[in-house]
């Protein structure tokens, strides 16, 4: 289904890729923030690795989104020159690194989702997306294992670590539902075969997360989904309060040198 405005363009798939690309870009940014601040050197290496994988997913997704959009925007234009309301990532990935448990909780919940998503997207009708997905699913296997192992260590570690891990899950949990909620763009992409309906990924996610929580001796938080104003959230460009500060940091140099090459 080509819904774009010019030859070779496809607005629905472009919007879908923007959602995927923004999820990876922002998840990667948060992960990269921890590098040089990790609890041990091995984790500086591991978190840098995860950040690199996510950035490596974001770049072709954004590039492809720009191509299908057909307005001449490349990966850097999309990352550096959009305003906050134009970012389409889900809110989960932008939650701050309050402590290491928050970093792990966020990435556990996200990677369990993204892993299932990319497994399904390997069959996307968009060749570029299918290619990215095929590679990403292996990377996300590793991310998921990494987050799961730390969730277990922290949940089954000391009293303090278990309390911190539980608090971190509480902070992230209200943002889970958004990942599985299709908006019209996602539905259109799913209908065309370029994307998938995320609701179908929920059972696999539930059992993956439940297994990790059980091994960690942690409970599934009993918290309702976070309601955005008028039901709007990250997919509509309405973000949490820390996101503007993230963007200010990320975009400042690029925006300070209009038109420059790097």
């Amino acid at each position: 289904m080509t819904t774009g405005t010019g030859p070779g363009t496809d607005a629905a798939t472009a919007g879908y890729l923007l959602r995927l690309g923004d999820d990876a870009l922002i998840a990667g940014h948060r992960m990269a923030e921890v590098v040089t601040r990790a609890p041990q050197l091995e984790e500086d290496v591991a978190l840098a690795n995860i950040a690199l994988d996510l950035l490596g997913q974001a770049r072709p997704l954004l590039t492809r989104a720009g191509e299908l959009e057909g307005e001449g925007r490349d990966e850097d234009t999309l990352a550096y020159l959009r305003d906050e309301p134009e970012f389409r990532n889900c809110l989960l990935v932008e939650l701050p690194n309050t402590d290491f448990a928050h970093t792990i909780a966020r990435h556990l919940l996200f990677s369990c989702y993204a892993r299932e998503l990319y497994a399904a997207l390997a069959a996307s009708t968009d060749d570029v997306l299918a290619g990215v997905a095929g590679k990403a699913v292996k990377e996300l296997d590793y991310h998921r294992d990494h987050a799961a192992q730390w969730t277990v260590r922290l949940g089954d570690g000391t009293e303090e670590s278990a309390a911190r891990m539980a608090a971190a899950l509480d902070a992230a949990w209200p943002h889970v539902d958004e990942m599985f909620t299709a908006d019209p763009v996602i539905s259109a992409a799913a209908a065309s075969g370029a994307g998938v309906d995320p609701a179908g990924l929920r059972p696999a996610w539930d059992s993956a997360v439940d297994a990790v929580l059980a091994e960690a001796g942690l409970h599934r938080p009993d918290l309702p989904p976070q309601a955005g104003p008028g039901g709007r959230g990250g997919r509509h460009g309405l973000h949490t309060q820390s996101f503007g500060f993230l963007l200010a940091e990320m975009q400042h140099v690029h925006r300070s040198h209009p038109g420059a090459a790097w």
Partner: protein
Amino acid sequence: MTLTGTAPAGPRQRFDAMISGEERIEPRDWMPDDYRATLIRQIAQHAHSEIIGMQPEGNWITRAPSLKRKAVLIAKVQDEAGHGLYLYSAAETLGVDRAELLDLLHEGRQRYSSIFNYPTPTWADVGAIGWLVDGAAITNQVPLCRCSYGPYARAMVRICKEESFHQRQGFEILHVLARGTPRQRAMAQDAVDRWYWPSLMMFGPPDSESAHSGKSMAWRIKRYSNDDLRQRFVDIIAEQVRALGLTLPDPDLAWNAERGHYDFGAVDWAEFTAVLKGDGPCNRQRIEHRRAAHADGAWVREAARAHAAKQADRAAAREAAR
């Protein structure tokens, strides 16, 4: 009657023979206490330099001006963490452990390279560090690939390979800036101006005042003098800076056909000493950043230990219950 090669010599003789025969000393080999102590000090300082060295560049990860540069920069900082890991492992073969060495670093009782006490106020500093600081590091480190202590030499082989890649990336960053907008070009020149002299200081004090060099040379840990290495580095960058289309901030820099080398100006050793003593622009901040990361992570490392102990207990209980 000659015993060479057949009768068991004393350990000291064996060690000396291995050194002079350019053989590698391995962890299980006997070695003199001061050889061991010198290596521990040097490898630890080198490891600390890698992890402190993550900060000046890590400072720019979240602000890198393009996604491609951001990816390259994250990979570079990750490599530095990896180098730290190799080097702490190499030090551990000498009977110390990483936690101990980190404590010495955090308490200011072991050093790291003073170069990392300079700030990185602009994006161009990432380029200048790659080109000049990694360049100087490679010049220093290539001879260490033939160092007499096996684990250290092998770590250096891996490290040097990655660092020459980093140096090329730094050069490329500056190259793009130097050909960019006037503001980008000014940024590049300013960064080179700030990093040039400190990079020359990375080779250590002049030979006339170098404390540890004699023994290190004899033990084949070190193979060239500080001044020789510094000259080698100047000869390289004095050529490369032309390809960049930038200049080095040294009015005395000039080719000396007679010596077959570049002459260069006098290094300000007073600044070197001040920064070494702790009065550099970022000394406090670098150590504070490390201490904070280590302290903030204490509960995580503690949790990992507690979990491992519980796992072991559970395994033992399962074993006993069979």
